[in-house]
């Protein structure tokens, strides 16, 4: 029973990371209808960047986290402004390819700048490890869970209470009408990329003390973020969080009870099954497809 609870908790913590990846993916999709295959690389960049700043350069941890988030957000905006903006007339396939290409370039740049070694980052500290009977939560886990809650509240406030967030929503729902009201859809898309990338950087930085930072981490993290976003219903922020938690828990339970080697495959099988049988997501309602 205790090992079940322990697995459940570690699954939830990983799930929080996947949820943040899925949120970034959802925000970009909502703002620009682009499925950003480079989203996982933002997480990679956050982790590797933090490792570079803290372990290699020896700067304090809080500065490292801020730098990691800022750099990743900058890369996200750059990607939107320099690449995607100039190919907006292109079809879905070209855009997918563009994001894949950007992802490769980010991975390559990460390997060049921060090296190809696996780096461990010290955990954020401050909180003690929580012990409840035989079940424990590591201190970094508390950071992760609290961050997801804070991020969730901040995003909810941004998109439903501020003019800026409402303008972004308007630009994604009805770009022409929004443009007539003085909202620039490209700026809205750039803002979405900044938020998504910054969030990815934050998630990557939070993950770095638990699982080491490595330049190839982005591929699987990105795919698991996709799996979470698709499982929760594409474009639904609450669904992204729930989807992330589901993926994390199922993964941890399968690692505990089936085989730890296959745990990476579980998320992708969920992604495939949801795409095939419930493309509207586990939480989504039935959508009518018109020809």
């Amino acid at each position, binding site marked *: 029973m205790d090992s079940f609870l322990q697995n459940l908790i570690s699954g939830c913590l990983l799930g929080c990371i996947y949820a943040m990846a899925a949120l970034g993916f959802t925000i970009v999709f909502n703002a620009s209808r682009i499925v950003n295959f480079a989203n996982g690389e933002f997480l990679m960049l956050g982790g590797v960047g933090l490792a570079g700043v803290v372990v290699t350069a020896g700067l304090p941890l809080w500065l490292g986290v801020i730098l990691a988030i800022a750099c990743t957000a900058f890369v996200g905006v750059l990607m939107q402004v320099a690449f995607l903006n100039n190919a907006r007339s292109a079809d879905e396939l070209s855009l997918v390819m563009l994001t894949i290409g950007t992802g490769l370039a980010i991975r390559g740049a990460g390997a060049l700048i921060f090296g190809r070694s696996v780096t461990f980052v010290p955990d954020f500290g401050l909180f003690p490890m929580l012990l409840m009977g035989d079940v424990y939560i590591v201190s970094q886990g508390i950071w992760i869970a609290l961050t997801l809650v804070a991020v969730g509240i901040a995003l909810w406030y941004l998109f439903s209470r501020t003019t800026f967030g409402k303008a972004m929503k308007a630009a994604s729902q009805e770009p022409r009408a929004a443009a007539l009201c003085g909202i620039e859809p490209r700026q809205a898309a750039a803002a979405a990329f900044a938020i998504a990338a910054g969030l990815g950087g934050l998630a990557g930085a939070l993950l770095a003390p638990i699982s080491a930072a490595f330049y190839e981490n982005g591929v699987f993290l990105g795919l698991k973020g996709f799996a979470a976003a698709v499982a929760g219903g594409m474009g639904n922020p609450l669904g992204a969080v729930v989807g992330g938690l589901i993926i994390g828990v199922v993964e941890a339970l399968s690692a505990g009870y089936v085989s730890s080697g*296959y745990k990476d*495959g579980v998320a*992708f099988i969920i992604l495939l099954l949801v795409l095939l049988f419930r493309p509207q997501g586990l939480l989504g309602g039935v959508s009518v497809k018109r020809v």
Partner: protein
Amino acid sequence: MKSANSSLRRNFIRLGLLVVGIAVLDVALTSQFYRSTLTLSLIFAIAAVGLTLLMGFAGQVSIGQGAFFGLGAYSAAFAIQQLGIPPLVGLVVAAVVPGFFGYLIARPILRLSGNNLALATLALAAVFYVVATQWSSVTGGIDPGITGLPALDYFGLSHIHVVLWLAGICLVICTAVALLLIDGRFGRALMAIKTSEVVASCTGVDVARTKAIAFAIAAAYAGIAGALFGYFLRAFNATSFNVGLSIELLMMVIVGSLSTVWGAIFGALAIMVLPNLLEGFDHAKLLVYGLAMVAIMMLAPNGLGETLAKLVTRRRVAE
């Protein structure tokens, strides 16, 4: 009709030139290193031709070809080592197993389109990679992987010569089949599907079946390429079939052309040869690949080879 036939004839003349080109290169290349680069280009070109059929003609993106490539490599190795089947027959196994598997999953997976199809095929590649690393009793996992495949030294020729020609012959046959398919009813059905599935089905095309067959052919081609890849190296492990392989195959099509099979051959050659020619390129390989892919998609979304070819012919016409 006449023009279609003459374009087919022109394509078969090009195919003849390809054979002559391989023969000339085989004689002219003195370094073992360049010869193995050429062999790898020919091998990857087979998979890229299949992907062009699926992506360029039917308009169905797949970022999961690496799974079929790996499936081909493992089924050929299994056939040779566990069942005692000769390597040449092993190639047939490597075409049939991925082709059959591709056909099976094509129907459900090709109901998706665009973004979702790209995601699903990418997930397929990732699942395959995880299974290949973990199912050690069959695949050998990462360490040791598959080892000890036989040297192919038929007719007193060395292993690399035989594999080079085997890859060349397979490429020519696969390209010829692709050209014949494109020229006929099937190819027109594919192009109709790319334009509009609704229109295609209204004109009597069985959309689901045609797409599934195209997917199966692309899978079979990738499987043949995978088997040849295994034969060539004689030992390989699961890391060869990671998600990067699928993206590399996709890049070959993009670098070449989305609308002719020749682009795939050009693309495979470019992707395999360029990194070897630029020395000290290895550490920046990913970055250059990524930026090249971005540049091509922004500036020449129909494929680099095709855009260059059009520029050349336009200039010639202008003169």
